[in-house]
């Protein structure tokens, strides 16, 4: 087995990197793949919370790098999915506790045993970002349809190119179809026109994401939700499947449809 190392990054904070990492990990593992995710956000760890594994942390990434434990000891196995593991970040240290070459060594040790190594990058363009991108085979950039998030995505895509890790692929997260339809939100075409990279997924805004994150049950475990399906689709595309993009339009009943036809553009 030789794993593909996927780094999820964004530049801007709060666009959904950790949620995306957790959900892709869950979706890949649910598809029978052997997955380990690494929380690269040393000092501000979150991935363990979203995955619902926080109370099982004994050792972390920095313990491994500094030789206080073996790699195996820091790997927390998920109870729901047998083939899903997490290497948590240290909460009491900072990004400088790990170097890009440490990350390359660490992932090289993991490659043998897994199909996928997912790295959740911290926000920003400094050491933590470089640590997370250094071992990557492929980089996913998460952004929201907002001007500031897109600007930061553009910057990060440029940096990924200059680290010779490109071309990055894009996940457009938290798309509110209603707002797009009203012309109040950037469309995926607007975003792609500027960023000029391959789109690997569009995730609709979905209340289930926050609800399930709070419970430590990633939304991809529940494919009945729209966001869950979107993450499942991204996981399949990562595996090389050709999955059509889902229709983001919220279903409206016949009366809503009629009233829209009668009063075009009016609300």
């Amino acid at each position, binding site marked *: 087995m030789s794993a593909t190392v996927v780094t999820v990054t964004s530049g801007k904070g709060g666009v959904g990197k950790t949620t995306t990492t957790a959900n892709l990990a869950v979706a890949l593992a649910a598809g029978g793949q052997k997955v380990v995710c690494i929380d690269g956000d040393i000092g501000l760890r979150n991935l363990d919370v979203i995955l619902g594994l926080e109370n099982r942390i004994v050792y972390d990434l920095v313990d491994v790098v500094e030789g206080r434990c073996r790699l195996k000891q820091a790997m927390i196995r998920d109870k729901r999915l047998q083939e899903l593991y997490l290497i948590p970040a240290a909460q009491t240290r900072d990004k400088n506790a790990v170097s890009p070459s440490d990350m390359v060594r660490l992932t090289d040790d993991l490659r043998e045993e897994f199909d996928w190594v997912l790295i959740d990058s911290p926000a920003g363009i400094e050491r933590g970002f*470089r640590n997370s991108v250094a071992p990557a085979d492929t980089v996913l950039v998460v952004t929201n349809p907002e001007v500031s998030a897109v600007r930061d995505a*553009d*910057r990060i895509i*440029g*940096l990924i190119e200059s680290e*010779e890790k490109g071309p990055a692929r894009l996940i457009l997260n938290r798309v509110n179809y209603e707002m797009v339809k009203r012309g109040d939100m950037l469309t995926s075409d607007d975003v792609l026109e*500027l960023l000029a990279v391959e789109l690997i997924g569009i995730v609709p805004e979905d209340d289930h994401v926050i609800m399930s994150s709070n419970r430590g049950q990633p939304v991809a475990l529940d494919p009945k939700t729209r966001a869950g399906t979107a993450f499942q689709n991204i996981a399949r595309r990562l595996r090389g499947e050709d999955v059509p993009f889902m229709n983001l339009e919220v279903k409206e009943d016949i009366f809503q449809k009629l009233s829209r036809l009668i009063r075009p553009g009016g609300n």
Partner: protein
Amino acid sequence: MTVETQIVHIKGIKDGLLVTIGEGDWPRAQSTLLSSIVEKASFFQGARLAMEVGNRVLHAAELGALRDRLSDQGVSLWAVISSSPVTEQTAQVLGLATRLSMPRPERSVRPLDTTLEGENGVFIRRTLRSGFRIASHGHISVMGDINPGAEVIAGGSIVVWGRVRGSVVAGADGDESAVVCALALDPTQLRIANLVANLPGKKAVSQPVCASIRNGIITVEPWKPKER
């Protein structure tokens, strides 16, 4: 003070240390440099390093790896001086200085201090994404877009075969005859010489245009070959 080895030469300069890498293969040069730094760790701790690499061609992976390994040793690499344009570009992309006299990229471009007889220019064949900055006393042509957050500053004119959405400054050394041409012009900011363009708000001009100074204001006009 001078540390002498066959391939790596380290000396103190005004603002930090200058490492000169001689002929020889890069991995050996790199390991020699790192081992001499490890040997005298206390001396190098917190040092600012400029590196002269001659005409050696270095790519981002090599230079980035060295920068990281140096930073592991508490040494910050801030400049790479090279006569190879590839290496120079790599250094710029990594945000490193490429001249010792220019301490760090700064916003303003110093006026031309040389009398250039001919025209000189730079050709950049890529899209400039947010955070990239290209500055030259000559003309600059870009084949690709200039995205919001990118900056292009030229002493002469700027010609863009693509869309301009970032900041562009032409005639930065005071040349009022400088122009900015682009296939589509919707800049964050556009300046020519000392003037700032009054941009027409949201609506982008999405046809080939040319901006120049007419009667003391920056005027943007559709490109009509016949008039020129």
